[in-house]
C-alpha cells in the first residue's frame, strides 16, 4: 500500500511501556564505554544526537534511548548482544525507522541498535535467482540492482523506497502484489541471525529448504525484532512479467464493487493487484493527482493484470465482462504504460491526498474476509457517526486488507482520543467478522493492547513461550507485541489439571 501518514502532531504520553530499570540507567556510562570498545566509531550518547532516534514512522510515541549504537559488522552485532545479555541490558533493533506500528520505539533503559550501516548487496546469484543482501539495504534497492536483467523483488510495501529488507523480514512486509506473489515470508530463502545471547546462526540458504528442522525462518519473519537480529537476508527474485495493464472500474455502491471482486476471483482470475477506494478517497486523490478517476461513483476498483501479452489481453476482456455484469458504471483499460502509472498514481497518493483535506489522520490496517466488505464498510460509516469523525477507505480488495483513514484535528482537544477509540472499534470489528488486527503494519506498540481481542490467554502464552526459547531474559525489544510481559520461568511451569478422563478405559501408569 502507498505511503501512510500518521498523526505526528500529537504526542502520546499514556502508552504503557515496561518500567525503566533504574540500575541500568545508573550504569549508563559504563554501558556506553563498553559499546565504544565494541564499535569505536558508532556510539551515539549525546542527547541531541539521540533525539532523532526517539521514534520511527509512528511518531505519536517517543522515547529517547539509553544509547544508540551503529555496528557495521556481524561480529560487532554479536559482541553487542553478548555484552547486553551478560549485563542484563535491553536492546531495541532498528532498521530504516519506517515502521507504522512503533516497532522500533526506544526504551529509556535500552540500547537502540541501528542497522543503517549494513547497506550493501553482497551477491546477485542469477542462476539461482536470488539476491544476498545486508539488512539495511532498502527494498527498492534490490529491484534496482536486478531490473537491468529483467528481474524484480516482488513484495512492494508503500515505503519500499526507504524501508530496509531487514525491517521487511522483521515485520513480514506486504504490498499491493501480495495476492499473487505473497508476503516477505514467501519470498525469503535464507537468513543470518544473531540470537539474543550473541550466537550467530544461519537458517535456509539459496534453496527452498526441506526438512531442515523447525521452520525458524518462517517464525523469525514477522517476529518484530523480538527473537533475534537479522544480519543477512537472501531473497528470491522473479522475472518481470512481459506485459502489465491496469483497469479502472467504477460502481454505484460498495456492495456492487464488493460483488465484482468476488466474481472476478470466483471466475478464477488472480490479478496482480486489486484495489478499492470509496467516494471520499476517490475525490481526494483525483483532486490531488488528476488521475482521471470517475467522480460520480461510490466505489472504484483498480485491477492490475500481468503476464504474457496473450494472457493479459484475454484476462482484461474477461474482467471487463465481469465488471459489466456486476453493473459497473464505467470500465477503462490502460492503453499505455503512462496511463497505467496514472491509474496507480491516484491510489498511491490517496493517503497524502486525504492528508490535504484533514490536518491529521490515523491509518488503520485490519484485514477482513472479503465477503464481509459491504457490511464492514456500512458499520464503519455508523461508527464514524458515533465518534463524529470522518473516515476515508482504501482497501487492498484482493486480499481483504482494509486501510480506513480516520480524519481528525489534533489541535482540537479530545479529537485524537476519539480517533483512537474509533480506530480500536474498527479493529475490533475486523476481528469480529473473522479478520485480524493487522495485515501488514505489525502489532508493535500501536495494536499491542488489542491483542486479547484476537487471542486468548493460552494463545498469547504459547507465543510468549516461543519468545522465551529465544530470549529467556526478555531483553530483545520488550514492550512490543505482547500486552502483558510474563516471566519465562513462571510460564515454563506446567499446570497439570487432574480433570476427568475422556477415555476411562485407559490404564493409569
Amino acid at each position, binding site marked *: 500500500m502507498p505511503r501512510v501518514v500518521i498523526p505526528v502532531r500529537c504526542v502520546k504520553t499514556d502508552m504503557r511501556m515496561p518500567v525503566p530499570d533504574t540500575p541500568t540507567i545508573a550504569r549508563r556510562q559504563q554501558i556506553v564505554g563498553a559499546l565504544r570498545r565494541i564499535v569505536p566509531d558508532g556510539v551515539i550518547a549525546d542527547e541531541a544526537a539521540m533525539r532523532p532516534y526517539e521514534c520511527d514512522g509512528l511518531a505519536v510515541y517517543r522515547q529517547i534511548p539509553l544509547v544508540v549504537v551503529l555496528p557495521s559488522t556481524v561480529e560487532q552485532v554479536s559482541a553487542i548482544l553478548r555484552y547486553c545479555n551478560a549485563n542484563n541490558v535491553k536492546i531495541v533493533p532498528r532498521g530504516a525507522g519506517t515502521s507504522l506500528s512503533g516497532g522500533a520505539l526506544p526504551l529509556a533503559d535500552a540500547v537502540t541498535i541501528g542497522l543503517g550501516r549494513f547497506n550493501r548487496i553482497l551477491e546477485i546469484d542469477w542462476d539461482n535467482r536470488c539476491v544476498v543482501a545486508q539488512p539495511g539495504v532498502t527494498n527498492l534497492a534490490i529491484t534496482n540492482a536486478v531490473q537491468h536483467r529483467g528481474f524484480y523483488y516482488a513484495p512492494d510495501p508503500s515505503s519500499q523506497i526507504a524501508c530496509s529488507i531487514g525491517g521487511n523480514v522483521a515485520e513480514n512486509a506486504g504490498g499491493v502484489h501480495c495476492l499473487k506473489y505473497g508476503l516477505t515470508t514467501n519470498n525469503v530463502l535464507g537468513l543470518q541471525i544473531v540470537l539474543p545471547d550473541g550466537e*550467530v546462526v544461519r537458517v535456509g540458504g539459496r534453496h527452498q529448504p526441506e526438512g531442515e528442522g*523447525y521452520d525458524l525462518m518462517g517464525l523469525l519473519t514477522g517476529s518484530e525484532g523480538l527473537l533475534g537480529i537479522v544480519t543477512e537476508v537472501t531473497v528470491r527474485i522473479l522475472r518481470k512479467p512481459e506485459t502489465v495493464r491496469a483497469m479502472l472500474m467504477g460502481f454505484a455502491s460498495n456492495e456492487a464493487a464488493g460483488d465484482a471482486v468476488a466474481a472476478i476471483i470466483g471466475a478464477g482470475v*488472480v490479478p496482480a493487484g486489486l484495489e478499492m477506494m470509496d467516494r471520499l478517497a476517490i475525490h481526494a486523490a483525483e483532486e490531488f493527482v488528476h488521475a482521471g478517476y470517475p467522480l460520480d461513483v461510490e466505489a472504484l476498483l483498480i485491477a492490475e493484470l500481468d503476464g504474457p501479452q496473450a494472457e493479459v489481453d484475454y484476462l482484461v476482456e474477461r474482467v471487463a465482462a465481469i465488471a459489466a455484469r456486476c453493473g459497473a458504471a464505467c470500465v477503462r483499460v490502460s492503453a499505455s504504460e503512462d496511463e497505467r502509472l496514472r491509474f496507480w498514481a491516484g491510489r498511491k497518493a490517496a493517503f497524502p491526498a486525504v492528508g490535504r483535506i484533514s490536518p491529521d489522520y490515523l491509518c488503520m490496517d485490519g484485514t477482513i474476509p472479503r465477503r464481509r466488505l459491504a457490511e464492514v464498510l456500512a458499520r464503519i460509516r455508523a461508527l464514524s457517526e458515533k465518534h463524529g469523525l470522518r473516515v476515508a477507505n482504501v482497501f487492498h480488495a484482493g486480499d481483504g486488507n482494509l486501510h480506513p483513514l480516520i480524519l481528525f484535528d489534533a489541535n482540537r482537544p479530545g479529537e485524537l482520543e476519539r480517533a483512537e477509540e474509533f480506530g480500536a472499534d474498527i479493529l475490533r470489528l475486523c476481528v469480529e467478522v473473522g479478520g485480524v488486527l493487522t495485515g501488514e503494519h505489525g502489532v508493535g506498540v500501536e495494536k499491542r493492547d488489542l491483542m486479547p481481542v484476537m487471542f486468548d490467554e493460552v494463545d498469547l502464552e504459547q507465543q510468549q513461550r516461543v519468545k522465551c526459547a529465544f530470549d529467556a531474559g526478555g531483553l530483545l525489544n520488550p514492550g512490543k507485541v505482547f500486552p502483558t510481559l510474563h516471566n519465562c520461568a513462571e510460564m515454563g511451569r506446567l499446570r497439570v489439571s487432574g480433570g476427568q478422563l475422556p477415555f476411562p478405559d485407559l490404564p493409569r501408569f
Partner: protein
Amino acid sequence: MGDPLIATDEASARDAIGWAVSEKTPIEIMGGGTKRALGRPIQVARGLSLAGLSGIEDYEPSELVMTAWAGTSLAEIEATLAANGQRLAFEPPDYRALLGGAADGATIGAVFSCNLAGPRRTAAGAARDHLLGIRGVNGRGEIFKAGGRVVKNVTGFDLCKLVAGSFGTLAALTQVTFRVFPIPEAEATVLVIGLLEQDAVAVMIEGAQSPHEVSGAAHLPAGIAALSGVSAVGGAGRAVTALRVEGPAPSVVHRVAALRRCFAPLGEIEVLEAEGSQAFWREVRDVTPFAGDSRLVWRLAVPPAGGAAVVAEVGRRIEAEAILDRGGGCVWLATAQKAEEAAGAVRDAAATVGGSATLIRAPEAVRSHADVFPPLAAGLRDLTARVKRAFDPLGLLNPGRMYAGL
C-alpha cells in the same frame, strides 16, 4: 502399541493429550497414517488418531481460503475444491506407493504437519506458504490457535510456519486454514528429449529466468523416463527434460510456442497436453519411478543451479539413480548401498552446494539409527530443543520423530 485413542472433536484431542501429560506418557500423533514411514520411528505405548476429527468448516470459493478439521481427508478436500474449479497450489504429493503400506488416504492436517509439496513448489511455494491459521493442542494439553483466516495477516508470531513441517512434535493440529487457488484453464508440458543432466539444468534455469512462468521443471534420465506411463516420455528412449506452463488457454499456447522456439535447437521437442501433462507431473510429484523397489530414497534440497553437480558428486562415490525436480532444486536419489555409506556420500554432496538431504524411504531399522532429517547445525540444536520445550515441555508428542532425543 495399543489401539490408538480416537479424537472425535477438539475437546477429546485435548483430553487425550491432557491424559498423556498427567501420566507423563509419550504419545504418537497420527492422521491417516500414510506417512508413518517418513521420519524416525516412534517407540510409544499409545497413539492419538485425529482422522476422526474431520469436516470442512468453512469454504467460500471467492475468498480463496478454506478451513477444515485436521482429520479431513486430502481426497475430500481436493474433490470439494475441484468441484469449484480450485485446488491446493502446492501440489501435495501422495507417497503411499513410494513408502508402501497404508491404503487409506492422507489427512489435511498431516499434509501441513509434514510440509510436503510437489513440483509446483518453485512457483507456488510449499505447504507452509499456504497455511494461514491453525488450531491445535500443545504438549501441555492446551488448545491454542495462531494465525487467522485471512490471506494477509501479521498479528503475532507466525506459529503456523513453526508447526508446518514439525511432524507433530510441537502440537497435534486440530484445524487448519489455508489458501486455495483457481485451477488454470489449461496446462501443457514441453519436453526436450535427450539432454545430459548438466544441459538439462541449464535449460531449466533458462526456463525459470524466462517470462513464461514455468510452473514445473524436471529432468528424468533415460532409464527412469522409460518407466513412465505417459507414452511420449516412456517411449522417448532417451532422457526427458520437462517444462510445464499453466494459465488461460491462449497464454499456454503462446508460451508453449515460445519455449519450443527457445529449446528446439537443443533437442527434439514434444508437447504433452492436458491429461498427458497431468499424468506426467503426478508421476514426478509422487516419485513413482522409485516406487517399485527397496532402495533407499533421498530427497535433496539444493540451489537449483547445483542440481547436476550434486548428482555427479554422488555418482563419483556410490551408484545412484537421480530425478531432478524443481528446476534442479530438488534431487531425488535412489541408492542401493548400505545406509551409512550412502548417507555419507549423499549428505557430503548436498553440503558442497549448501543444500541438505533427507532420507525419505528406508527400512525402519535404518531410520531408528541413522539421521533421517539433515543434522542440525551446532548453533541450532539447543535452540530447536528450546522451541520444542516451548510447546511440549515433557517431550510427549511424537518423541524422536525428527531427531533422537527430541
